[in-house]
């Protein structure tokens, strides 16, 4: 199923206004299954706002954000679902969710969209292992009979906890954090904290992984390691990745698809090499109007 060209996330006419400020203006794009899509743009372009809308932290002013998993045929139900006023539909063959109708924790819990944050948000006073167990909260909560069975110490919970520990251990191993498992998360070096945040998001078993500047503050070697990890996640775990990134080396190397935002408006959308040569993108990054691009390019020797 991995890269069958079907769509996992469809963003349609997304608009987000804060009072008079239009942060995102009529944005539409798609994330294909098993690909890495990069969302780029100059500072203040509205990238993180798009993330917050997708993950339910903001309620968009307008627009439809649909996420699908399982059989792509479920997409046919989208118009009925939209008219029904429900949040989503779950069928044996697959599920479809309208993210704009869901509160943030349900986006993570039911639609299985995981995210990381631009300024790392770890549980710094808890150990690395505990961080990964908190990420598996909902499954463990169910296994502990909403705490009742767990307080009595029934074996069903113990086996669920062992499974959760095994999963945490396997992700720690893959991210090279296993020997720091019992250390507090706040004591890890910066690069390890970034990796831990991605590992924690992976422990929620996501369908779509949203990474807000995962390479920010990493040195070139760490950044290259992270690229490898993201490619492994994409290829081996059937997970689609949406990432915001400023580091063009990351964007151009690993992304399959790039969406460029400027002042909340989509100015380009396509394969990395197409976007790289788009004069509009160059203008946005250099901060000049379209017709001056040629001049500027000549001046800087492009």
């Amino acid at each position, binding site marked *: 199923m991995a890269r069958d060209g079907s769509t996992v996330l469809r963003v349609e006419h997304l608009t987000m206004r804060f009072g008079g400020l239009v942060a995102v203006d009529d944005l539409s794009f798609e994330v294909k299954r098993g690909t890495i899509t990069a969302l780029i743009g100059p500072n203040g372009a509205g990238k993180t706002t798009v993330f917050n809308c997708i993950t339910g932290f903001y309620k968009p002013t307008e627009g439809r954000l649909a996420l699908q998993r399982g059989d792509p045929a479920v997409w046919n139900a989208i118009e009925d679902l939209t008219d029904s006023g429900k949040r989503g539909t779950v069928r044996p063959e697959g599920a479809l969710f309208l993210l704009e109708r869901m509160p*943030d924790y349900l986006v993570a819990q039911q639609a299985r969209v995981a995210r990381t944050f631009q300024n790392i948000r770890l549980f710094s006073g808890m150990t690395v292992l505990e961080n990964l167990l908190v990420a598996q909260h909902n499954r463990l909560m169910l296994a502990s009979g909403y705490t009742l069975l767990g307080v009595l110490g029934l074996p069903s919970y113990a086996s669920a906890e062992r499974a959760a520990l095994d999963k945490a251990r396997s992700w720690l191993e893959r991210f090279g954090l296993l020997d720091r498992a*019992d250390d507090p998360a*706040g004591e890890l070096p910066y690069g390890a904290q970034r990796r831990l945040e991605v590992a924690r998001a992976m422990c929620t078993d996501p369908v779509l992984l949203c990474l807000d500047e995962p390479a920010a503050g990493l040195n070139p070697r760490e950044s290259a390691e992270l690229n490898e990890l993201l490619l492994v996640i994409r290829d081996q775990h059937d997970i689609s990745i949406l990432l915001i990134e400023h580091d063009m080396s990351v964007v151009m190397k690993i992304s399959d698809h790039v969406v460029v935002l400027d002042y909340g408006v989509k100015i380009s959308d396509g394969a990395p090499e197409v976007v790289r040569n788009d004069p509009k993108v160059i203008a946005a990054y250099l901060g000049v109007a379209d017709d001056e691009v040629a001049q500027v390019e000549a001046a800087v020797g492009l």
Partner: protein
Amino acid sequence: MNAGAQRKRVDAAGALRDAAFTGLIAFGLFLPLIGFETVTNIRDELILTTRWPLLFAVVAITAAGRFAYSFALAPWLARRAAQPTKPAPPAWRFYLGKWFTPFAIGFVIAYPVIVILAAGWGGALKWIDNFGIQILIYVMLGWGLNIVVGLAGLLDLGYVAFYAVGAYSYALLAKAFGLSFWILLPIAGILSSFWGILLGFPVLRLRGDYLAIVTLAFGEIIRLILINWTALTNGYAGIIGIPRPTFFGIPFNADDKGFAAVFGLEFSPLYRVIFLYYVILALALLTSFVTVRLRRLPVGRAWEALREDQIACRSLGINTTNTKLTAFAMGAMFAGFAGSFFAAREAFISPESFTFLESATVLSIVVLGGMGSQIGVAIAAVAMIGGTEILRELDFLKEIFGPTFDPTQYRMLLFGFAMVLIMIWRPRGLIARREPSVFLKERKSISVDLVKEGRG
């Protein structure tokens, strides 16, 4: 050598100057407070007298204290802080940490026996009742509040409200329906946790200081209802004649069917007190056991994660609303248990027992003990409640300070002093380490510097 002596002299001069300055401030401060006194003379006139000797004694003590601090204590502290490597903690610390909990539990179980052996049959009552039971009630309240404040990071200044709900639930239901203590104990807990959820709903969107203010108001609302709804609660007069717990149906009285008669013993009020002691001990240990258990369950980890970072919790699919409500409900339930025990022990309750001061006492026990630490809270409760109770015992002070001197009046001073000391010495409480709830290879305790305090 010469340079050392020189520096010493300079230090002494600096310390003297410091002491003189402090003395000046003390003089200015205490001149109106201690220096002058208004007394009524024999013709019933108010006259102003001076108390120069006392004033100068206080100023001299202050200045001398400051001199001692800046000449001896401050350089010593600085030298100790400047030491490059801290010496490894001595071996006794390790054994203390390892054996403290089992020893403490053994001690509290054996406590009534020890007291009877030490103080005799007659003197034991006071020590078991005023010290044992009183302290254990606060240990239990501290552990209950620890769930809300220490684990979930929700600052609750109205905790006494749930204590009151538990006490009045037991008192009213027992008097109206004649139900036994053991049936009403869980009911009081359930009613209290219901009120905890009721308080939780409106305050969920509030954070930090705002949450604290609303919980404070909630505590006052409950108290005012207890005062003004006289038809139900009998207002200030309170409820008297609350049935006391029985030993499997056998009451503790001098009756023919009383505990002493049934077991062929001579009647003594001590039996009931010992029984009550073990009841509150069992309730307190239950609180601790459940809390320790919950910390290792997903709900407990979610509480701690909530204290660390709420937004991250939501991004991981944790329903923060429900998580906060469970914390409020659990904390309130244990307060309800403690409240119904309190009503059953006293056989009389009135709104006087549920003032803000009680909330403040319990909260200060949690803060002094170290937020989230079970042992720390227990030690703090022993120090705070035992400390104030022991003030009643210091009769010999009357011989020093005169017959009008009442040591219990200095309770708040002691409180404040303990607070200031802890804030200087251990700003995050007595036990400033967090034990991880799970580990792969090695359990390493976490310095509280990394642990967040929570902002609601």
